[in-house]
């Protein structure tokens, strides 16, 4: 096994789970995420010399996986314009991704969700996250702050509903 192959094998071994978690959190569909991440790793293998020099190879994989997913959805939307019942709902059957927080995550605007995925699930720092998204570090902070606020509100609302689903009217 060459040095490149060894390095890729190590990267694949260490990065598969975090990348899959990040993509699954973003898409809400574990099965689809698995396919997308496998495709992204295959592309990383083809371009390993470039990817291995990337400042955040895991982020490269996640972005590639999400882009592959976006291409798929666009293509499928063109092919099945009337089959809206076929569109997978987030956290659908078999995904195991049905927690309140993950549902709240998927309701965030795309950019906020990307920031969360890179910052939280891939544990990238602010600067690297900013470079990956081609935005300013201050913008990353702003998105993160808004995302946290939105998540906090969603969770508070969910907790209230859970604690008292049918509040008794007060006299």
């Amino acid at each position, binding site marked *: 096994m060459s040095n490149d*192959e060894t390095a*890729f*094998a190590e990267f*694949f*071994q260490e990065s*598969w*789970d975090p990348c*899959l*978690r990040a993509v*699954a*959190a973003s898409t809400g*569909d*574990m*099965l*689809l995420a*698995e*396919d997308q991440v*496998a*495709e992204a*790793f*295959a*592309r*990383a*293998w*083809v371009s390993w010399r470039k990817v291995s020099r990337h400042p955040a190879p895991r982020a490269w994989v996640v972005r590639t996986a999400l882009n*592959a997913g976006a*291409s*798929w959805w666009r*293509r*499928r939307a063109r*092919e*099945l314009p009337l*089959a809206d*019942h*076929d*569109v*997978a*709902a987030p956290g*659908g*059957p*078999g995904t*195991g*991704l049905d*927690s309140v*927080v*993950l549902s709240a*995550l998927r309701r965030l605007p795309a950019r906020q969700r990307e920031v*969360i995925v890179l*910052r*939280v*699930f891939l544990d990238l720092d*602010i600067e690297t996250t900013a470079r990956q998204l081609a935005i300013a570090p201050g913008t*990353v*902070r702003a998105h*993160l*702050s808004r995302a*946290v606020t939105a*998540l*906090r509100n969603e*969770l508070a609302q969910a907790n209230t509903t859970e604690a008292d689903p049918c509040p008794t009217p007060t006299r």
Partner: protein
Amino acid sequence: MSDTDQMTDGTELRELRDSLSAVAMPERPRLEAITARGRARRRRRLSGAAGLSVAGIAAGTALALGTTGAVGPAPVHGTIRTLAPGTIRNAAFKIVKNANDKATLTINPQEFLDPATLQSDLAEYGIPAKVTSGSFCSSDPAPAGFSQVVSLPPRAAPVTPQSGVQPTITFNPAAMPAGTELSIGYFQLTSGGQQASFALIDTNSYSCTSTTPGPAGPPDGSQLVYGGPGQAGPDQQP
């Protein structure tokens, strides 16, 4: 540490991280499957196979058809084997070969199932099948032995998106009489659900119709209704 850095340790983000950590992760694919997929991708790019010149479109197309692109040293009909040997998986369905040489098909009700892909994948498990969409093929008389070949889930099991149940069908190719194949017809129901009808057909004598077998299912066959709102569950015959 900045304010934002401190925020990432906040309750909400910790919960977010923890909730995904608690999710059971699927088995990691074999490295060989990934590198083979990469090589196949590179070959496609170099040869311009299927007229595709933009990287990524091939995989996207395969996914749109319910497949995930060619993986493995001997790709057949765009099938992926990223899991253990004996397993075919894509977004729309999974086929697992059991130790007793039976094969179990699990359908994801939320994904578009491509009949041609399912047909070719079943063939790889030694299950000759004619999989059609919007039509159903049958023989008159139907070959005997259907109940030994196909097992559907019990009628009581609800198969709706809300239930989270993915229908599973078990095939026993060894029980298929010579000169027969399996007919699987998919119909999109107006309710939004899907109906899959199953029967054995005589390879040399059958006819196909776009009329659904109806709620009772085909004579000497079985039927599964799934994926629609409020579907009661699979309808099995006889």
